[in-house]
């Protein structure tokens, strides 16, 4: 009896040991995204975008069956590091795709690149990872964080706005946003106002803006803050008098809640759902059919990340063992990005076009951002020249 149990136990142990060996045939991709908390919707767009791409590619990347492991970083760097260790050590993933937030990217960067695993960001592009701390294992299919803000600064400068009011939440990304805006804007800044993070009522700021009468206002208010600000800005009657420039504030994650209040508001982006390429049209239609929402840029970046991995692995014949070969293949990967022109710069960040986009209502009643004009052509981020790693 005892012997039987022992044999069974041994068999079970062997069974467990044997399972990962068999599964190694599959390509493993870890998705590290924020999927809970007030900002969860951003992570959901990225997750859905990636999974849509895998589906469109027939469940394979680079000819290999793929297993996508989704983990929630909870927007907490310490939690993210723990989850990343799980992905690296237990799941032995070949790629980590994500995250949404820069603080998560900075915290998880070292463990991932130290494990010689490729890290492909679908949104976060903190300045240090684009500049001094750039790494041959880190790539972004998104942008460097400052770039969308720079679009608005350039537009404000080109349109000859003399006085601009700046508003951002009081934390690192808010300060970076205003710094990005000021890179190309040289006019007078009547007020640089910082509200506590997660402020939801902007009425006192709006009264100040109304009394100062600037030529335009620029803001960075992601998530629920942006929903409130836009609705209150419209209700205060300011939207038609003082142009509202913003980044990460009026986008497809917030538009369903902002509704008509956001129509006509200007934003900066590297893409918009109405971008006129056959690949993009197909993507937007498929995304809407599958998830009943207009995709935001997070979904596009994640979709592109999957295309990138697919193209790179096709070039290596599906092999991931030779890291140098994989890296070379990523850098040269030939794929049709949904945004049109796309190539990697020396720091692993894209060299791409940026646009001024405008929120509009489609004929079916849904809201989306639409391209108004191209602001930067083949634009490299400001930190790339500080990157010295041989990427």
């Amino acid at each position, binding site marked *: 009896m005892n012997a039987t149990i022992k044999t069974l136990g041994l068999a079970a142990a062997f069974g467990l040991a044997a399972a990962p060996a068999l599964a190694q045939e599959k390509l493993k991709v870890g998705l590290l995204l924020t*999927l*809970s*908390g*007030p*900002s*969860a*919707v951003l992570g*959901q767009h990225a997750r859905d975008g990636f999974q849509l791409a895998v589906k469109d590619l027939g469940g394979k990347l680079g000819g290999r069956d793929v297993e996508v492991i989704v983990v929630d970083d909870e927007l907490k760097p310490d939690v993210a590091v723990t989850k990343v260790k799980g992905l690296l050590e237990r799941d032995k993933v070949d790629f980590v795709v994500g995250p949404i937030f820069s603080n998560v990217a900075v915290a998880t960067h070292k463990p991932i690149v130290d494990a010689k695993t490729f890290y492909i960001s679908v949104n976060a592009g903190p300045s240090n990872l684009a500049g001094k701390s750039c790494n041959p294992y880190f790539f972004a299919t998104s942008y460097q964080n400052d770039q969308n803000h720079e679009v608005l600064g350039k537009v404000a400068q080109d349109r000859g706005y003399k006085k601009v009011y700046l508003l951002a939440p*009081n934390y690192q990304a808010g300060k970076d946003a205003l710094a990005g805006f000021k890179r190309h804007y040289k006019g007078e800044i009547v*007020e*640089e*106002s*910082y*509200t*506590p993070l*997660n402020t*939801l*009522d902007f*009425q*006192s*700021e709006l*009264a*100040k803006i*109304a*009394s100062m*009468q600037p030529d335009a206002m620029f803001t960075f208010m992601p*998530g*629920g803050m942006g*929903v*409130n600000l836009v*609705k*209150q800005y419209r*209700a*205060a*009657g*300011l939207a038609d*008098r003082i142009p509202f420039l913003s980044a990460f504030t009026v986008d497809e*994650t*917030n538009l*369903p*809640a*902002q*509704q008509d209040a956001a129509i006509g508001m200007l934003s900066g982006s590297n893409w918009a759902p109405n971008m006129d390429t056959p690949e993009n049209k197909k993507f937007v239609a498929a995304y809407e059919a599958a998830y009943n929402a207009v995709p935001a840029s997070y979904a596009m970046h994640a979709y592109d990340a999957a295309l990138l991995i697919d193209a790179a692995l096709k070039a290596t014949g599906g092999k991931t063992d030779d890291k140098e070969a994989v890296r070379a293949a990523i850098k040269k990967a030939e794929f049709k990005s949904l945004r049109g022109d796309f190539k990697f710069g020396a720091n692993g960040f894209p060299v791409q076009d940026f646009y001024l986009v405008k929120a509009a209502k489609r004929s079916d009643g849904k809201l989306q951002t639409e391209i108004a004009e191209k602001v930067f052509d083949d634009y490299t981020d400001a930190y790339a020249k500080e990157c010295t790693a041989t990427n």
Partner: protein
Amino acid sequence: MNATLLFVQALNGLQFGLILFLIAAGLTLVFGVMDFINLAHGVQYMVGAYLVAAFSAWTGSFGWALLLALPTALAFGLLLELLIFRHLYDRDHLDQVLATFGIILFLNQGVRFVWGAAPLSVPVPEIFSGSVEIATGLLYPVYRLAIIAAGLAVAGLLYVLVSHTRVGMLVRAGASNAAMVSALGVNIQRLFMVVFGFGAMLAGFAGAMVAPILSVEPGMGDNILILAFVVIVIGGIGSIRGAFLAALLIGLVDTVGRSFAPNLLRLILDPAAASQTGRAIAPMLIYIFMAAVLFFRPSGLFPVKR
């Protein structure tokens, strides 16, 4: 800074203060009468906002949504009382904090499960959707004036209820000495339940009123809960009158301070340093104010006599 701007900011402060009062009123009663720390009071505010969002999507009218949301918020509060809080009254404060914190996590995740993580929006009711021009170029939304009116009306109603009715008398007595009230033959359990349900409904009402101007999202009650605690501590725990005045003070200090601190500092510092320090000090003002009040009046502005 001109007088008009000051006036507008005072209105903003008043409106913010009244919303705080609606939340703090229930919290101070529950804390004062039952000696029960209910961290989950903030999620009841969130639930009120979600209920109004759901009902207004269903009925297409904010008025109907509000009428449906209030009894539902009341029922929800009573349900929580019956299932969970009732078993915590005799436990110590740490147990209460842990259990009610658990409810926050549970309900925040719960609304995400039911309504999704993306913020919801509630349209401003048609009749209040305009704005009035207070001075040239300075528009003030009518809906915010409606919030002020509703807040003042509820404050008046509470005053009558607490000071001039039998239930109110029992509540006041309960806040002073619950054991004695019980000994005099009052069903204290039922009194607790009434107070609790009413407090939950007030918080739900506050959530419902702000739903059209703020975004309705998971976790929206967490920040406001901290302010509500500041209010009841300043006002004196258990005192409705204290909560009312403290809420208005906090609303004014926060709004006016945030708006004018940089300007005032500019009188003594150079502009760059003034705006830097002003930004840093403004969010601290209410806590500095609380510290000052507690230094001079450790049991708050209007302590309940014991």
